[in-house]
């Protein structure tokens, strides 16, 4: 169904938006608009109808109010590094970019809290906290550029979330603009505010419940010692067994990362990371905490890796050595570009103990389809990042890769896992949601959406394959929903 013509398009809002954000805060030029057509997931593209770049929470509120009054959908975007198309704009809507809101408002070192604006980059928070011996724990690989506002929307993870938790464990208060344009605080920064935990419910809602304008984050004490080990194994199964043995020993490393031979090959080609020759799998294990504990745990992890068949183990004790070990892992996604013209990144999760079986099954899928799959993953928490390689110049190759990619997600679901561990559902995986959740689950989740955004204007079309019409009594459909009847809401 098309939007009814009497509603003005987003371009009609340009004058009002210019009043709010100033002439340099509004983009209407089609060429410039096209630079916002996708986020980190380039497979989905749509040029926004209008882009606004507010600098204050009040401006965001005014922009959203104007959209709500005109019944024009809007999408928030931070740094645009998301990998699920969560910030994919709409041609009939306004894209609200928060990257100019980048003040670190306050750091309360003793309370271990910082108050930041949404456009502040993830790493900037840790840098600002460093003089106090503190850091911001969630560390997505894109932390140099990704924004805290985007992290909140996606409940971003990262390599060190195994021990330190995800964004939702480190956010204690949010100032948001509700989808009808009201500025309000959720939580009070304590992490123990009375009433419903709207901070927790909002975090990870992928921009569908409102737009974050200020964030209170927890800061964490910088550990006294950090050791990083690199262990090379002949096979993935041996590496996987070492992961299980480490966790089973009662040690909780800050991170356990794993790469397979194809991912190592790509990393060598791209950044010459000089991982041990002949490795079928490398494991990166990082331990942090009090110095004596780290020393003991390092020895224990070494022993476990040797017992499980590691033929070479390297240890890093300072930042430079650590960076050398992490180079290969951190470059892996981009490095795959060296061995394949194109690839799809998946983000499935399986219970940790299912890893060896699931990896073998992925290898079988790869062999039977003839499509190469490189594996880079957060082994400690079972979060796989299979990279499904294809040649985009070859007709049908992308579709074939999509099939393998989908089969990997089916495999994750069948083992009691998840379709996404940290990248989000966005536009990309909404079609898989009904495989993981039943109609009652999806319907109930959307009650939350209806409470925040009854008009369905805030990042519509993301997460849920079928939007719930708010106010509709489940199972009792009497007449078209008033918003549909009035042409305000599309039913798609």
């Amino acid at each position, binding site marked *: 169904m098309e939007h009814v013509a009497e509603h003005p398009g987003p371009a009609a809002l340009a004058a009002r938006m210019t009043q709010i954000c100033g002439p340099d805060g509004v983009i209407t030029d089609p060429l410039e608009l096209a630079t916002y057509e996708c986020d980190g997931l380039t497979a989905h593209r749509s040029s926004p109808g209008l882009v606004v770049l507010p600098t204050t929470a009040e401006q965001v509120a005014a922009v959203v109010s104007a959209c709500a009054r005109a019944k024009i959908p809007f999408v928030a975007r931070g740094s645009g590094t998301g990998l699920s198309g969560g910030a994919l704009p709409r041609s009939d809507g306004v894209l609200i970019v928060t990257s100019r809101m980048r003040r670190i408002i*306050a750091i309360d070192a003793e309370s271990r809290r910082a108050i930041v604006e949404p456009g502040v980059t993830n790493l900037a928070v840790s840098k600002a906290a460093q003089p106090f011996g503190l850091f911001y724990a969630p560390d997505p690989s894109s932390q140099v550029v990704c924004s805290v506002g985007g992290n909140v929307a996606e409940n971003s993870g990262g390599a060190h979330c195994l021990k330190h938790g995800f964004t939702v464990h480190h956010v204690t208060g949010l100032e948001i603009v509700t989808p009808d344009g009201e500025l309000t605080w959720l939580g009070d920064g304590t*992490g123990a505010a009375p009433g419903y935990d709207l901070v927790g*419910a909002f975090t990870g809602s992928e921009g569908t419940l409102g737009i974050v304008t200020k964030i209170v984050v927890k800061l964490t004490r910088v550990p006294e010692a950090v050791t990083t080990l690199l262990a090379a194994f002949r096979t993935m199964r041996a590496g996987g067994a070492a992961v299980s043995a480490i*966790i089973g020993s009662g040690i909780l490393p800050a991170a356990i990362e794993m790469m397979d031979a194809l991912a190592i090959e790509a990393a060598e080609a791209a950044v010459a990371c000089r991982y041990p020759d002949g490795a079928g799998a490398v494991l990166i294990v990082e331990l942090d905490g009090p110095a004596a*504990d780290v020393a003991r745990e390092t020895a224990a992890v070494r022993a476990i890796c040797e017992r499980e068949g590691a033929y070479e183990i390297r240890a890093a004790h300072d930042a430079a050595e650590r960076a050398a070990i992490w180079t290969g892992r951190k470059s892996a996604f981009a490095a795959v570009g060296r061995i394949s013209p194109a690839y799809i990144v998946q983000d499935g999760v399986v219970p940790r103990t299912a890893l060896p079986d699931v990896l073998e099954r992925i290898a079988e899928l790869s062999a039977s389809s003839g499509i190469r799959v490189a594996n880079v993953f957060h082994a400690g928490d*079972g979060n796989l990042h299979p990279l499904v390689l294809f040649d985009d110049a070859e007709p049908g190759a992308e579709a074939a890769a999509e099939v393998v990619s989908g089969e990997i997600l089916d495999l994750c679901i069948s083992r009691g896992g998840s379709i996404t561990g940290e990248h989000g559902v966005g536009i990309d995986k909404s079609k898989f949601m009904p495989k993981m959740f039943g109609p009652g689950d999806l319907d109930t989740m959307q009650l939350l959406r209806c409470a925040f955004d009854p008009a369905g204007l805030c990042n519509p079309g993301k997460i849920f394959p079928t939007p719930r019409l708010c106010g509709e009594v489940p199972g009792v459909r009497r007449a078209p929903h008033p918003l549909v009847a009035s042409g305000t809401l599309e039913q798609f």
Partner: protein
Amino acid sequence: MTAGPAPEALAKACSDVREAGPDDVVASVAPRFVASPADTGEAAAVLRAAAAEGMTAVPRGGGTRLAWGSPPVSCDLVIDTRRMNRVLEHAAGDQVVRVQAGVGLDQLAGLLARAGQRLALDPPPGAAASGTVGGVLATGVAGPLRLRYGTPRDLAIGMTVVRADGTVASSGGKVVKNVAGYDLGKLFAGSYGTLGLIAEAAFRLHPLPGAASFVTLDRADAAAAHAAIAAAADSPLAPSAAEIDRPSRRAPFRVGVLLEGDPDGVAERAARMTELLGGSAASVSPARPAWWGRGAAAAAHGTVIRIAFWAAELTRVLAAIDAGAAAAGLDPAVSGSAAAGVIHAAVDESAAPAAVSEFVLALRAAVATPPPGPSADGPPARASVVVLHAPADVCMALDPWGPVPALGLMRAVKDQFDPEHRMAPGRLAGGI
């Protein structure tokens, strides 16, 4: 007045429905019936029947914290989850457990300990037990370990709930890392039964530490106690908890720091923590001090007030407690997770309701009221003062919740999940 026979629909829905008795009273409100479903399916049938009959319902686990929150404005039916007491899955290698809501926390701890694991929640025990998983989730209660491991919402990775109309809904799952869909578990944790029944939950587990050591010392006044807590929290010694306790205004503050982990590491860290906190003044013991973690259970029949604040404000909060208590003629016991910014003030049951009310209002005015004028760049109020439980006459005299941010959105959430307001109506802030 007797309730009469249970409606046929309700009796059909559940194999165990009975008339309510005096032991089933929920915070002074007498229910008519008690239904004890055996599983999620029966619980859904019970709620469908309740919906058909227009009955209000209050979920109940072990009843440990049933007196918490505001009394319900109506309660036709208690849904007792204690028959839902099965551990559905303990994937030891994955450090994940999935349970029915009626599983007791103590029972679960025993099972997990045999695999060298624990659910890192240590709410203060009630008279008989620590309560059920469902009750702990619904009240969001946490003990000293909150400093390191957070509260129930931080450890729950999946939840199955039953809505007021009987719809069963799951979110999350049984893997630690998962961002698929909205996390309904966050919404239901701390919801006091007002959004529906928590039927099943999955949790992330942690290894049971090989050793524990409590470093304790006395501090004469609030500022000195605050300094010790701040030093412990700022240390690189990874404390699992840092608590204070003061039974009376005339007593010194006890400060306690818990270190857990490998036995050698704990011994070394305890020695370093002792030195950090004042050398010979501190003592080290593997035994938990008697006062440890009683916080929310400090006055079983009296009034317990929970104050949450930004940790740097500890001295100011303690001063506000003393000033408010002195003005009201009270001498509350003070205890709690000072480093995590959550402490409790407990007033004896003999205190006059008017005095308790005066104390709570004074505390709110001192620490939980936004400064006048346009709000600065941060949350307008950075603390809350909540009465967790109180004798009935005290409950009548005050609003246990006080001001709550984003109450309008909370009401909108309630209206969506429970449009007829039949689930634990009135239990939460703002009459939700």
